[in-house]
């Protein structure tokens, strides 16, 4: 994965943060003032959000200026990019899709088995180490999913998703 320039990332982030700050300020400004409940005007619910929105926008502007003026162009280390993308995908699919859609035990078994298989897959073309790696992953997935499910279900009395 190509390293990302910290300077550029900071400038883009500053713009995003400034937009969030303005949105927060407007959200606070347009928030219900609760006049019908005759509250003190200084205690309106939007007061602090307005202040925070302004502060965030101010910090974002300052960061944009300092990033633009900075001569130092540090690179953001993304490490092993492919591994990162696969890990993120697997984790998000497990947390957002599988859990709740499948019983917890099955979802966890699938996730752990796939994760271990993917990241401990032997590099060589031989069949035997591959089969061994797959068998270990399935066994590990089965043991861990049963153990975690039993711990939460019977140990901590949690109604599993």
């Amino acid at each position: 994965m190509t390293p990302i320039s910290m300077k550029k990332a900071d400038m883009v982030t500053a713009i995003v943060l400034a937009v969030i700050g303005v949105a927060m300020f407007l959200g606070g400004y347009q928030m219900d003032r609760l006049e019908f409940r005759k509250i003190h005007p200084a205690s309106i619910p939007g007061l602090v959000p307005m202040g925070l929105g302004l502060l965030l926008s101010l910090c974002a502007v300052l960061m944009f200026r300092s990033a633009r003026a900075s001569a130092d162009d540090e690179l953001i280390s993304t490490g092993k990019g492919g591994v990162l993308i696969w890990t993120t995908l697997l984790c998000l699919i497990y947390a957002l899709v599988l859990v709740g859609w499948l019983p917890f035990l099955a979802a966890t078994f699938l996730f752990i088995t796939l994760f271990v298989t993917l990241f401990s897959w032997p590099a060589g073309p031989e069949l035997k180490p591959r089969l061994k790696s797959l068998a270990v992953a399935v066994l590990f997935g089965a043991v861990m999913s049963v153990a975690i499910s039993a711990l939460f279900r019977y140990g901590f009395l949690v109604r599993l998703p």
Partner: protein
Amino acid sequence: MDSIQSLAVAFVELTTPMMLFHVLWATLLGIIVGSLPGLTATMGVALLTSLTYSMDRDSAILVLICMYVGAIYGGSRSAILLNIPGTPASAATSLDGYPLARAGKAGYAMGLATVGSVLGTLVGIALLVLLAPPLAEAAIRFGSFEFFWLAVFGVVISGQLTADGNVQKGYIAGILGLMVAMIGSDGIHAHVRFNLGIPDLNGGIGLIPAMVGAFGFAEVLTAMSNPPGKVVTADGPKARTIPRFIDVWKYKLTILRSGVIGTLVGILPGVGEDIGAWASYAAARRSSKERDQFGKGSQEGLIAAETGNSAVVPGSLIPALTLAIPGSAASAVLIAALFIHGIRPGPMIMIEAPEFIYLVAVMLLFATLAILVLGLFLTPVFVTVLKVPHAYLMPVVFTLCVIGPYAISQRMFDVWVMAVFGVIGFVLRKMNYPMAPLVLGIILGDLLDKSLRRGLILSDGDLSPFFTRPICAVFVVIIAASILSSSQGVRRAVSRLWRPSATDGKP
């Protein structure tokens, strides 16, 4: 005298076989969690909170404190053997611990780190017992005006001290945390804010799911994307692991100084163990006779770093118990756990549960004794644990990240919150945004919001009490000085003013 009596009562109350069993397993688990790169103390405490839900109050808090102390200490294992700090708190430890390990003294370095951690925690416990009760009594005099500035002070100091070079990023992280706290029903009029039409957001963002995401999921992603380290175990079979008394005694001043520095850093809101370790390390280096050895395998440097980070643990509990303001990210989770188990931390603690501070001190003492015993005698076990590949460890950790937040609320929504905070936390961390101010902002947002608006109601919209009340004025001066000192323009102007006067007297 009352304190000693209260400590004795707490000691007797906690000395039961069941409690001692909890101490052993929770500390051991903490050391394992801390020693594994990718698993932090905050994540361990956050995940364990869900497991202590069905326990009684004292057992639950004991288990969490043992996890916290164990994990901060455990980080030294991988710092020494792998040159990868198990937790950020052990980054300074690796500077001298790893060179010692490469010189064939890994076991001895771990022994020194153990003794340093034990002594640091003991100094912190002594200061906790001495400082917490009077601080709680002083805090009773705090009103809305003072609490507003205390919340601002926490976010500003945390943002400034935890930022890695760019202070603006620390402030931004703190403001983002405060913004997250604005989601859901407000604390005064119960008006729902920023729920984006999602009913699950009416109650706000839960701290535990957010913390598990930002510290757990983000750590899983970080650990998987970084190459694993290589364990150094070059000691001979008869290598000494228990430090000589003389080696520890000659650094008595360093230990005491590091313990005090660590505790004071712990008291600062949201600053955390890593800063405690670095501050202690820097102070030890400045005053050492063998400063050229620092970074090359100095025993003094190793002891200073470990004493400093461990002393932060009791230190961080001082504001957590007496002001409900966490001294570190892990103590923020502890505050949430205290609420779950029916303890209301804050100025009223010395009135509502005066014995609790002493119970916490004894819990810390038990955890400290446990790390001494486990740390000195189970070194080979920790070396084996460090060899577990990430491909096997991380899916199990992530499964716990998913089921942990769910177990507390039984809501799938909290799993989604964890996932979102995990991705955001990972991206922010890659861009050098510190996580501690973000967490502190989430915790302090409600206090800041309520205190400002309640103060304005009390003063009928007049802002002057926020600046004229004595404690408020002190806070304002400290906050203003702190913000101004972080500005390069102001620093340059001050140095320009200073330079001519400094050279005036010279010929």
